[in-house]
């Protein structure tokens, strides 16, 4: 019988990491990730979790400590947000190139300036190309299940890549949700012991992190890229297994009343649940609209996206970050890019919503929907992002 309780999502995330029996956690506190690291330190202090808790002096050092730890074969975990992710930026890229299976929760928060502690996706969008496997969680149960998923996929010897789990800061980290915890047996069955592909070991000395001249660098990067692309196989396998254990089957692209819909919203993260309320209201009024929720961000889920779009004529992408001077919001640009050149390519609109925690309610999404329908009458559709709700 699995335990189901109302718990703050941060606590659930930390508990999941503890259930995975991590060996080392190195993290620097930053709002809104703090409850995760605080609870982990409680679990270590009480003896419930046997792990090294390294209270590092910056996020850059946090990821660096994790590199060292993962390289000797310790199951390693960290979390950060916003400025912390930006500070550890160079090491984030390095971790993926070194193929170290570190698991990190990013409690999504706006990148400065101005300073903001509230939720949007500008932090994760700044590391799109870092080479990590990146997924988004939608609710508390999702977060708990995905933490275990992250270790399973990262440490799989066919993958051996770091995994980033994105959870919306405050909107998800600080809310109390019903979460069904796994049994110890479930975890043991799902998550094997960590056997690293490369281990720093005096009995079998290896060199990690050499300098590469121009004549070999391209090959090294191609190998890394292919590893990320190939990881999809293990990702799907792991989600299938979670489904068999818990009854919750996760997919790279989740849908809500999307089948056959002519207009689709596309979201990432917890706002999907808010948009689904808008979808219900619209559909009650006879509108032909549905919702796609992108769970897998990297490696990009091309096949699943193509399949779920079906006959949609329009995709309304809700971006929660700005690509300054760029061709639309980050997610919209990627969706356009992925669909470019395909037969019956849908029109893609980019709406920037909810920057730095500004509330966006179902009425707002309904308003966006009607606005898009108006735009559909126009001859010339512009590609640039629309800042929804900005005061002129």
């Amino acid at each position, binding site marked *: 019988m699995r335990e189901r309780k109302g718990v703050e999502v941060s606590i659930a995330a930390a508990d999941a990491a503890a259930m995975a029996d991590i060996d080392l956690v190195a993290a620097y506190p930053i709002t809104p990730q703090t409850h995760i690291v605080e609870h982990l330190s409680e679990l270590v202090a009480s003896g419930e979790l046997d792990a090294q808790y390294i209270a590092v002096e910056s996020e850059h050092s946090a990821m660096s400590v994790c590199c060292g730890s993962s390289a000797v074969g310790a199951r390693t975990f960290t979390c950060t947000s916003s400025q912390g992710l930006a500070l550890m930026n160079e090491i984030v890229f390095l971790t993926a190139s070194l193929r170290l299976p570190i698991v990190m929760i990013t409690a999504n928060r706006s990148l400065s300036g101005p300073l903001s502690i509230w939720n949007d996706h500008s932090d994760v969008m700044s590391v799109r190309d870092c080479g990590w496997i990146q997924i988004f969680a939608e609710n508390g149960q999702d977060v708990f299940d995905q933490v275990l998923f992250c270790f399973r996929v990262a440490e799989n010897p066919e993958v051996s890549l770091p995994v980033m789990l994105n959870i919306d800061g405050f909107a998800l980290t600080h809310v109390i949700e019903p979460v069904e915890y796994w049994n110890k047996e479930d975890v043991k069955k799902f998550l094997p012991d960590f056997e690293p592909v490369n281990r720093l070991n005096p009995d079998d000395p*290896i060199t990690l992190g050499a300098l590469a001249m121009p004549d070999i660098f391209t090959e090294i990067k191609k190998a890394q890229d292919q590893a990320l692309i190939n990881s999809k196989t293990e990702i799907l396998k792991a989600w299938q297994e979670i489904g068999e254990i818990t009854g919750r089957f996760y997919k790279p692209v989740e849908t809500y009343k999307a089948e056959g819909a002519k207009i689709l919203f596309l979201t990432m993260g917890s706002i999907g649940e808010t948009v689904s309320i808008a979808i219900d209201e619209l559909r009650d009024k006879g509108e032909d609209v549905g919702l796609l929720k992108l769970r897998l961000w990297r490696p990009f889920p091309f096949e699943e996206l193509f399949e779920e779009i079906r006959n949609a004529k329009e995709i309304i992408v809700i971006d929660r970050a700005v690509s300054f001077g760029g061709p639309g919001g980050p997610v919209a640009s990627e969706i356009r890019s992925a669909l470019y050149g395909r037969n019956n390519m849908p029109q893609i609109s980019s709406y920037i919503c909810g920057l730095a925690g500004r509330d966006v309610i179902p009425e707002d999404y309904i308003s966006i929907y009607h606005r898009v329908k108006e735009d559909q009458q126009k001859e010339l559709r512009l590609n640039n992002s629309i800042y929804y709700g900005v005061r002129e």
Partner: protein
Amino acid sequence: METNSKPGWKDLEVGFALSTPGSAREYKTGDWRSERPVVDTEKCIQCGICYIFCPDMAITKTEKGYFVADLYYCKGCGICARECFTGCVKMVTEEE
């Protein structure tokens, strides 16, 4: 690993790891030098000072116990000649 034929991306180790320790041994740094140390074994007292001060580990011991330059690696820096206790090591110009 062959240094003549360059590897393709499929040949590489995971995370560009190098699992052959000391693979640099195959790299000939002896091509760098313009001078070479020569030992006068009459004066050599086999103290090993030249051996310990060589930054390139390019001093080896002969069967008789004299320390001579390993010409595969010796870069001709001249430290051994300068530090030699009895002055029995001299640097001579490399000829073509």
